[in-house]
């Protein structure tokens, strides 16, 4: 592993202008991605995870705007870079796989023609065999370069998108829920394939999803986002085994298992806050089962807990409720009230 992260995001803030004032969709996010690393970003819809990806790739368009912060990619700040210089980096050094391959591919052009578009736009000196090569990499017969998107199944379209992202062997591939439109079997095989390609070619991945269980076996680092902020970050296995933030614990407890006893689950009651008027103190306090007095007034920072970091006052010695939880490995969660409407 190299000595410096390939991507350093520092204090990134994105706001959407709205009639009710600015909405802070991404609020002070820090993120490091090392070469060859698989970083997952999880959270509910509306937590700002997709906006953050778009901000990193400099793909935001009004009314969204980066208000502060920096995105250092290989030491160069993408935020202040001109479009012209960005164009050189895009696709060649970092590429993006969009959420819905159904809509991201042009329906009236063959897959091969769309590959050629990308090549023409970014680098005309690529090997002529390269499109066929990347199609084989993702497990599609190169004969489908002549096919149109509607002739491919959902899984194949998503693979074709990934093939296109790998055209110039980038160092970083950003994926926005690439598997959410797929069935479990196709989803599983795509995840295995992404992981294999990553091992083989050594690129880093930022993978955004709302399904925490999906990435448990594939990612190295896990970032949990809530209401525009990172609420927990740590090695994937550590976060899964010992979630330190009540929200991560809630996400983990939200899906049923196919093994073990059948237990009653509750999910996370309530819905994410309105980002134009986030609640005072901890943003999770209206839904938190462990809420105490300080949560309503003190805004928590990211506190170091073992190998991970959690944005929860339970881990702030100055604010922890009495008696302070001595066993930080496991936060006891009482039964949550059912339903999602408060």
């Amino acid at each position: 592993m190299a000595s410096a992260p390939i991507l350093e995001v520092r204090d990134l803030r994105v706001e959407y202008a709205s009639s009710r004032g600015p909405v802070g969709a991404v609020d002070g996010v820090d993120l490091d991605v090392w070469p060859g690393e698989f970083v997952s970003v999880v959270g509910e819809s509306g937590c700002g995870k997709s906006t953050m990806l778009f901000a990193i790739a400099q793909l935001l368009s009004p009314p969204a705007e980066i208000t502060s912060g920096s995105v250092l990619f290989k030491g160069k700040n993408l935020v202040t870079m001109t479009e012209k210089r960005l164009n050189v980096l895009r696709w060649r050094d970092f590429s993006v796989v969009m959420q819905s391959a159904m809509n991201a591919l042009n329906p009236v052009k063959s897959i091969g023609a769309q590959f050629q578009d990308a090549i023409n736009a970014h680098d005309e000196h690529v090997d002529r065999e390269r499109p066929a090569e990347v199609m084989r990499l993702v497990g599609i017969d190169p004969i489908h370069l002549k096919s149109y998107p509607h002739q491919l199944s959902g899984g194949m379209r998503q693979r074709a998108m990934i093939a296109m992202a790998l055209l110039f062997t980038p160092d970083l591939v950003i994926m926005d829920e690439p598997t959410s439109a797929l069935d479990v079997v196709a989803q599983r095989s795509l995840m295995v394939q992404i992981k294999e390609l990553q091992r083989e070619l050594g690129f880093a991945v930022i993978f955004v999803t709302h399904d925490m269980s999906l990435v448990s076996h594939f990612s190295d680092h896990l970032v949990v986002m809530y209401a525009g902020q990172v609420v927990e970050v740590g090695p994937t296995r550590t976060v899964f085994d010992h979630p330190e933030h009540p929200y991560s614990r809630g996400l983990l407890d939200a899906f049923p298992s196919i093994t073990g006893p059948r237990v009653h689950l509750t999910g996370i009651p309530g819905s994410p806050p309105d980002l134009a008027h986030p609640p005072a103190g901890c943003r999770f306090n209206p839904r938190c089962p462990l809420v105490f007095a300080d949560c309503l007034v003190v805004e928590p920072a990211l506190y170091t807990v073992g190998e991970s970091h959690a944005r929860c006052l339970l881990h702030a010695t100055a604010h922890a409720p009495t008696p302070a939880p001595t066993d930080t490995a496991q936060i006891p969660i009482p039964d949550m009230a059912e339903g999602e409407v408060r």
Partner: protein
Amino acid sequence: MTDSITDAVTNTTDHADPSAPTGSVPLLETKGLTRHFKVGGNLARKTLHAVDDANIVIDRQEIVALAGESGSGKSTIARLLARVYKPTSGEIYYRGRALSSMHTRRDLLSYRSDVPMVFQDPFSSLNPAFRVSHGIMRGLKLHRKDISRANRYDEAERVLDAVGLTPASDILQRYPYELSGGQRQRIGFAQALAYKPKLILADEPVSMLDVSIRIGLLNVMADLRTNEGVSFLYITHDIASARYVADRLIVMYAGHIVESGPTEVVLSNAKHPYTRLLLSAVPDPRAPLEVGAQTDTGEPPKVINPTPGCRFRWRCPLVVEECHHVTPALRVLGPRHAAACHVASEDEIEKR
């Protein structure tokens, strides 16, 4: 229900769903349900077999999960049961009475109010131009003659309460855009519930929702079953959620039912290789780390002009010669547990 109907139903044992509880006339039963679609132009007319010979039984207060990949025919079954499509052949019996014998408007209305459907996409299945109350009140007006005009609003509040939307009077006055995805899908259930249904056809009701919200909806289904006595046909591709709510599990592949049985029995002792594949694909962070155990990249075939043989044979790890020529029938392999596979063994043999 007369005795003659009971006899007529129970005598045809060759068609029955082996996993079903035996006894009285089931709430809903299909026999040899088949739906084909014509595809292609006039010169290249072909037949797509969406559902072939499906025998399903749904009993009172029962949640039956129908699992399979997209294109396996599970939504077609829901639409056949909702009378969106007419079956190519086969018959649906509702409380022992054949649907094809229902002709009067009154019969059809009463069937539709007894068996409503909840759709997959809560963002497009509610009319954005009307308040929430509109859809519920219309259903009440059309299907609930027992409720006087003055009491309709109270009933609307009651069904919203039943699906966990409070305060009901406030929610009734909102527009769909003011609600979250989970709340909208609860409205979908409330609309169905307003008809006082016996069976709700839920076609992937949670797949468009966030994982953290899905569980709440599954709990609503379980509560409605307990409190309102509603049965569910829960269509899903997520076996873990099927296990969470369903009493029985029916697995479909390429238009055929390949395995059926009580949920726990099927999951703990899956007979059909396709069921095993589905199970291995479920991401489970609680399970130990194992990458690449199953790297099946195949997808269910489009069943156009099929020849005899098992439709899973191209992806099957256990394929034998017989699979290429003979379509396997559902065989009873354990107590109320059946699978359509030539290779699957019976319980007794496996235990040895």
